[in-house]
């Protein structure tokens, strides 16, 4: 019983730690606007390069 | 060619909306009824005791006051009409029958009851909501709108007879004008026509802005004259074109094209004869009013029609005119700021050039012909291209 309790406590502890780390990481990402900086400065320029290189079937049908 | 006897008289009639014949008809006690758009059947405004007056704003130099009301970013035609109304140019009118043909047109027509520019105590305005398809539902709506906004006000406010008999009579009389104009227009089919596009444009316009009963004798005489008129020894133009698109009520525009070397052999635009001069046929068992509505909905070529059949009709009709009038190409024009024709021009240009193999030149124009240098250059280049194509045997 005690063993199970220990395992459970450990699990809860781990979950709390993981939860806390996740919170700190996501909150930092949120607060410092990380995802938007990544999208604006890295992802979109790459995507735009791809879009600009596309050969579109551009015509009035 | 020898000058047409009445051409200068006709040209003078076009110098003012309130022209000599309009004055005469008003003096005779006829009801002067204004309209702008083909959606308002001209024939209904020519019921016994009435005459139609399609509104133009000739010699319009500035639209400053209309710009104040409607901004400079709106259709120059509607601004010119509003300006002329505010100047007092339509004070002879007893009514304006408007159509929500487009948003700009509707707004302009609304100003006729909002700021009362027409100083005539009898004057009133109604605006119909015209349909955008040619199906039965649309026809029923068109009938209901014309009844509610045209026929009933004519009866209730001006005491006009709107019976079937009266409409039949109006149809009959209008058809006489239409036959004359059509016959005159058909002279343009000849390899070396006895009429120029400019002359025809003038004739067509007077038939729209003057009381039918008063202009008819002049038209008949002109038709007789044309029957025996000798053409130039050799076709004096380098090419033949159909002029297609939105509003053109200034024959100087046709003259501009013809001065560049191409005869305008067909006129498929607002104020042109295609559509407007087709004979109205009343079928067996059909009321005259129903026939009028059916006729106008069928023949209307307005770019606001959205259904596939009507869109196709617009292009097929131009193709027919090009063939029948032996046009080498099409000049497709639209009034600046016109949403409908701006779009239609892009599509039609594609259809004519790529699907129907008809050379097409697209241009955008103002209402008043001011600086025409750029247009002239465009027309000259197009005509040259048509000429080269003709020399190369159509390749």
């Amino acid at each position, binding site marked *: 019983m005690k063993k199970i309790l220990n395992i459970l406590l450990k699990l809860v502890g781990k979950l709390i730690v993981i939860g806390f780390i996740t919170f700190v990481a996501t909150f930092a990402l*949120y*607060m*410092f*606007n990380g995802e*938007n*900086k990544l*999208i*604006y*400065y890295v992802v*979109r320029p790459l*995507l735009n390069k791809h*879009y600009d290189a*596309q050969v*579109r*079937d*551009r*015509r*009035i*049908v | 060619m020898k000058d047409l006897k009445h051409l200068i008289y006709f040209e003078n009639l076009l110098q003012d909306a309130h022209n000599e014949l309009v004055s005469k008809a008003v003096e005779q006690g006829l009801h002067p009824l204004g309209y702008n758009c083909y959606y308002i059947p001209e024939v209904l405004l020519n019921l016994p005791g009435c005459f139609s007056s399609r509104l133009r704003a000739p010699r319009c130099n500035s639209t400053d006051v209309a710009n*104040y*009301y*409607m*901004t400079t*970013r*709106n*259709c120059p035609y*509607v601004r010119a009409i509003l300006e002329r109304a505010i100047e007092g140019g339509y004070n002879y009118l007893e009514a304006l029958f408007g159509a*929500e043909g*487009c*948003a*700009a047109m509707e707004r302009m027509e609304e*100003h006729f009851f*909002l700021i009362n520019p027409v100083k005539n105590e009898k004057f009133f305005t109604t*605006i119909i*909501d015209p349909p*955008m*398809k040619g*199906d039965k*539902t*649309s026809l*029923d*709506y068109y009938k209901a709108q014309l009844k*509610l906004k045209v026929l009933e006000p004519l009866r209730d406010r001006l005491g006009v007879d709107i019976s079937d008999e009266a409409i039949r009579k109006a149809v009959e009389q209008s058809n006489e004008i239409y036959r004359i104009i059509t016959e005159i227009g058909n002279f343009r089919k000849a390899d070396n026509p006895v009429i120029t596009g400019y002359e025809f444009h003038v004739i067509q316009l007077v038939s729209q802005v003057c009381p039918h009963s008063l202009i008819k004798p002049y038209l008949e005489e002109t038709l007789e004259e044309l029957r025996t008129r000798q053409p130039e020894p050799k076709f004096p133009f380098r090419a033949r074109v159909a002029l297609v698109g939105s509003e053109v009520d200034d024959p100087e525009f046709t003259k501009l094209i013809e001065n560049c070397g191409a005869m305008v052999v067909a006129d498929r635009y607002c104020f042109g004869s295609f559509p407007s001069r087709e004979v109205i046929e009343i079928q067996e068992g059909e009321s005259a009013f129903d026939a009028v509505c059916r006729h106008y909905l069928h023949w209307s070529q307005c770019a*606001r029609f*959205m*259904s*596939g059949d009507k869109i196709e009709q617009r292009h097929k009709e131009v193709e027919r005119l090009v063939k029948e009038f032996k046009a080498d190409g099409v000049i497709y024009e639209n009034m*600046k*700021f016109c*949403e*409908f024709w*701006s*779009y*239609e*021009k*892009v*599509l039609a*240009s594609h259809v004519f050039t790529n699907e129907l193999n008809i050379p097409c030149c*697209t241009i*955008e124009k103002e209402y008043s012909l001011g600086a025409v240098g750029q247009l002239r250059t465009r027309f000259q280049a197009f005509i040259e291209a048509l000429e080269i194509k003709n020399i190369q045997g159509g390749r």
Partner: protein
Amino acid sequence: MKITDKLISAIDKKLERFDPLWQAEHGVGGQRDRYYDKTGVAKWREWRGVKDTFYDYTQWLYNLYSMVLMVGSAPVACLKGFWEYRWMGSYLGTFMFIDRLFEGFRGYELRTAHMNMHAIVQSLTKKIALVLANDKRLGGGPLSDNMVPMDEVLPPLFMTGFKDLIPIPLQTLPEFIICDIDQHIEPYYIDVAESFGLPADVCSRCSAETGVAIDDAFPIIGKAFLTTNMPCNASEATSMFQRRRLGLPDMPVTMAMIHNEPGAHPYSTQVLRDAIAFIEKEYGVKYDWDALFERAKHMNEQNTIELEKWDIFKTPHSALCGIAETLYRLYSWASVNGQEDYFTENDRKVIKIMRKAYEERYRPFKGKTRHRAFLWGPSAVYYTDFPTWIQNCWGINIVLNMDSTMGHNMIDTEDPEKAIEDLALFSEKGVMRHHAVGGWENVNALWEWAKNFDCDMVIFNDNVACKGMNGVHALMEEQARDLGFHFIFLEHDLEDARTVSRRDMRKIVNNYMTVVLNEEPLDPTLVDFDDSLAF
């Protein structure tokens, strides 16, 4: 006071100097200080105090979750979509978009704003996944032929009578809502249309739609297409290009333009009947009135709640403000239109908060509103956060937007004949349509609305390419003067930020507020700034 409240209060006090509202109030900065020049990229997110920042963070997570779900539900299709469609790339700007919208929001107004926004995000992400997973261009899916592409301004409620079909507002994904998110996307499509000869003076929304058609960038779905004449001339005209590009049997659902007359409704009713018959024929299905009634009940409830919201908007104590109200109403009415339960449930929750806030005589934006404005005419799609800016900068609360007044009549849920008549009236009063076109009385209704909502100011959206609204310029201005409203014509070009930039739009307001009203801004950092490179 509970210990946690005390603690939060102490932290808030300690960190208040990071709050842009506090900074502006104390003359040491403001909202714009957080941004890199031109880009619209914030160096850090807004510090709104512990509770509100944490709430904003949880909502950020919540929206992120919806996006993960979207990609997770159709990973291959979503990736293909990003690869194929330029407009899909713009959806990556969603988070930045949400941040822009709710800048300066605190307390109740932040909560209702996020609730409404999440309703849109969860709906839109599902719709994107659904469309891409069934887009024949990307390989198609089992529901490809059950979808009915229809013009986005045709209210889809009447289509719910086809319970096995899925109406998709075709232009919403590649054109309308994406322009809200990214001001640079539609100019690309506008340029495509103009390169084929379309003049630059036509309505840019329709020009963009035409560009999407010419660029072959509409998803390929369905077996037949419903177009419409709503809201205006250019919209009618652009459908010519779309129907050709889609190559599907089409039916223009042409509602009466002059719709405020009794004669118009029988016609519009018949047009809807024709549309139903067209879909029955093309899809081989039967219309089910009970299915319609079921969804109409939701729409009726949403509209009932909307009317209650309006009563609260008339007071200074509304917890739902500005763009949070406008954008939600636009999406929930025009795109969802009674089809999704989530919106009814959301409305129930939001109205509860609004009632509570009213009972508490809560004043949004910390009571800093100086003017109550009615926003009339179609708004600039590329400047969705304009109501937010104008509140934060000048204390002008956009109480209601013209488009929020869309069809709010109830639909009969028992008698099919009555229901279709109600639907016709409802559909005639659609987006950008109800008060913008179809007769003077519609546009002139502005003054009654502004008076009823206790507004002292009218901001009249002046879409430079809108011929209908241009046609009432002087009459509007003269009436504003006669009736004693502060009146600003706000020039914009609907979906083309190059013609009248966001900065130009702000300048118009700034000039009025400083020159005419001699007022000082609430936040000087917001008066003039460059966001030309922002999404």
